[in-house]
């Protein structure tokens, strides 16, 4: 099957049938094992890369897993890249500072991304980080197109002892607009669109923070694995009931950023048809690929505000091993509807 820009995503093994090359590869290291997957695959498939940059968050690494993973990534990439650099960014919860630091880093290292074949692995970037990363690459570095890679987890590990609840984070630091996506607040009413994740508490955090006049929800369906869409729905039942979003429930495949983008577009159209004076706020709590779909939509629509509940703690070992790795290509200048 062909990889069609802005339309399809493919399993990476199906795509890398012939040798490929890219000028710059950006990825991120973390305690999750799946962060090493893409570099493993590239090495196996003898991909040719010019410069590789590995983001290293400033965060507690109690069991040294992040360090090990980053070293593993570096070792893989050194075999196929001309240059591998580890970039020490800020904490996961400070994307603005982290990305500003990255711009300085690019300048200092004389790395020019303009007109380069760029590929980014978003697997373990936090959503706020890759949102802002793509924003500045588009606005400041004139990025037009980019390849994106993502590796699913094999499964999520952290379950509470009662009711099989999946727990990925704990506590709440703040609910805030993602920098660069502050949208428009010119109207007095807000409409909130939540891309549902496995943790209903986070949907409620966002909902209580915004206190919108109208709420829509998008469930990841079909999900990464069969039946997971049930998990996210059940986890969000209270949110759906409190917000009234159970009457405005849409779907988008968990693994497809383009369909997610289309779904968000349809929802916004529906909202604006009925309510002329309403601000649109989106909160991407689902998969990273769905979040990427929200990103694509928001990049083309500056009125959209994107908000995120920054947790106190990301639970270590919340994901287990790795599942399929996907690749897709985005053209930021033109996106296809359905």
């Amino acid at each position, binding site marked *: 099957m062909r990889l069609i820009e802005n339309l399809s995503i493919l399993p990476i093994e199906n795509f890398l049938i012939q040798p490929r090359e890219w000028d710059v590869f950006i990825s991120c290291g973390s305690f999750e094992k799946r962060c090493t997957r893409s570099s493993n695959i590239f090495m196996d498939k003898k991909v040719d890369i010019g410069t590789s940059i590995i983001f290293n968050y400033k965060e507690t690494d109690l069991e040294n897993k992040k360090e090990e993973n980053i070293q593993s990534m570096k070792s893989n990439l050194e075999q196929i890249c001309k240059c591998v650099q580890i970039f020490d960014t800020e904490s996961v919860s400070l994307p603005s500072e982290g990305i500003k630091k990255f711009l300085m880093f690019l300048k200092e290292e004389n790395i020019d991304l303009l007109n380069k074949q760029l590929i980014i692995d978003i697997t373990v970037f936090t959503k706020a980080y890759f949102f802002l990363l793509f924003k500045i690459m588009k606005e400041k570095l004139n990025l037009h197109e980019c390849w994106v890679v993502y590796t699913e987890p094999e499964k999520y590990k952290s379950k509470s002892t009662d009711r099989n609840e999946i727990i990925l984070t704990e506590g709440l630091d703040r609910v805030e607009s993602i920098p660069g996506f502050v949208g428009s607040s010119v109207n007095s009413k807000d409409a909130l669109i939540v891309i549902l994740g496995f943790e209903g508490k986070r949907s409620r955090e966002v909902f209580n923070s915004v206190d919108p006049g109208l709420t829509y929800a998008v469930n990841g369906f079909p999900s990464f694995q069969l039946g997971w869409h049930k998990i996210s729905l059940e986890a969000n039942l209270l949110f759906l009931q409190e917000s009234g979003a159970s009457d405005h429930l849409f779907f988008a*495949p968990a693994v497809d950023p383009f369909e997610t983008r289309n779904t968000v577009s349809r929802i916004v159209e529906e909202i604006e048809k009925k309510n002329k004076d309403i601000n649109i706020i989106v909160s991407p709590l689902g998969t990273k690929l769905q979040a990427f779909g929200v990103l694509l939509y928001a990049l083309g629509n500056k009125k959209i505000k994107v908000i995120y509940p920054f947790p106190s703690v990301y639970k270590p070992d919340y994901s287990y091993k790795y599942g399929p790795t996907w690749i897709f290509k985005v053209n930021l200048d033109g996106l296809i509807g359905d």
Partner: protein
Amino acid sequence: MNHHIKNIILSNERMKDLFSSIMEKDRHYWKKFGTPDDIFKWLNNFLNKNEIYLALVLADNILYYNINEVRYLWRLILTNRVKRYLFDDIFEEDYSGKAEDITNQFTAFIKNKCIFIGFGEIYKSGPHMIYPFHQAVSNIIKKEDIHFIEYSNFLSSKVDLSDKKVIFLLDDFIGTGNQAVKQWKEEIIVSENYKSNQHIRFLYTALTGFLSGVENIEKHTDMKVILGESPMDDSFRCFSDSSLIYEDAAEREKAKEIMETAGKMLYEYPLGYENDQAVVAFCHNTPNNSLPVIWKKMGDGSWYPLFERFE
């Protein structure tokens, strides 16, 4: 009767939780029952507290697809999965790289080059897929632009397919795939329409189904299977070792014994057609691959279903 079931549920925290989960799911997204009466009636089929508990576990794990989900899957199948699969057929040499072209040409392709058939005879679930399919795609492609023919007509009458490229066979669920293989070999490839139109590709589209069934069909026929959902593995068979429904082995063993005993009274395949052990139901019907304890209604009132199957 309800009182008796209620008391049993209320006497146990776990059962209260399961029951509450089922009712909340129904309220917010199944939207099938409204009141608990049908659920109580179904639970009343079971003999004692332990059986009722196991039945609640089963009910809480049913993969039920409501009308919105069914419509969405059809929409996704057509506008996403099929579009990507047939990309080269749609565009041949002409892909300009422009977004609008894909949309326009795809619509034209569907209108001019495709036939849609509900798979199987009129009493089967395939033909019943036509209506939700229509509804799902109605704002993308006009009703009059989708060319439907009945399965029996395809088999028996001469249809001009010379300028067509693809025939879509619509169904809801793929179990073992044996039925589809059989129909392919005994009905489709012996038909006049098939023989005189060897250029046509057959796409078998279904909402969901077992991976083994998909592989069976693709191995033994020329049909390509396209599912809306990811295919199911053994963890979706109710009593398999990797079952996600009864994860505890002892519980699973006990539940199997109960459901199989009851199933013997209900259907020639006590654990679902060809022992599929599925736990799936759709808003329009329940496939017979699912456990009969879920769908069978006995005329004499000896068994009341949860998600009744309509033949």
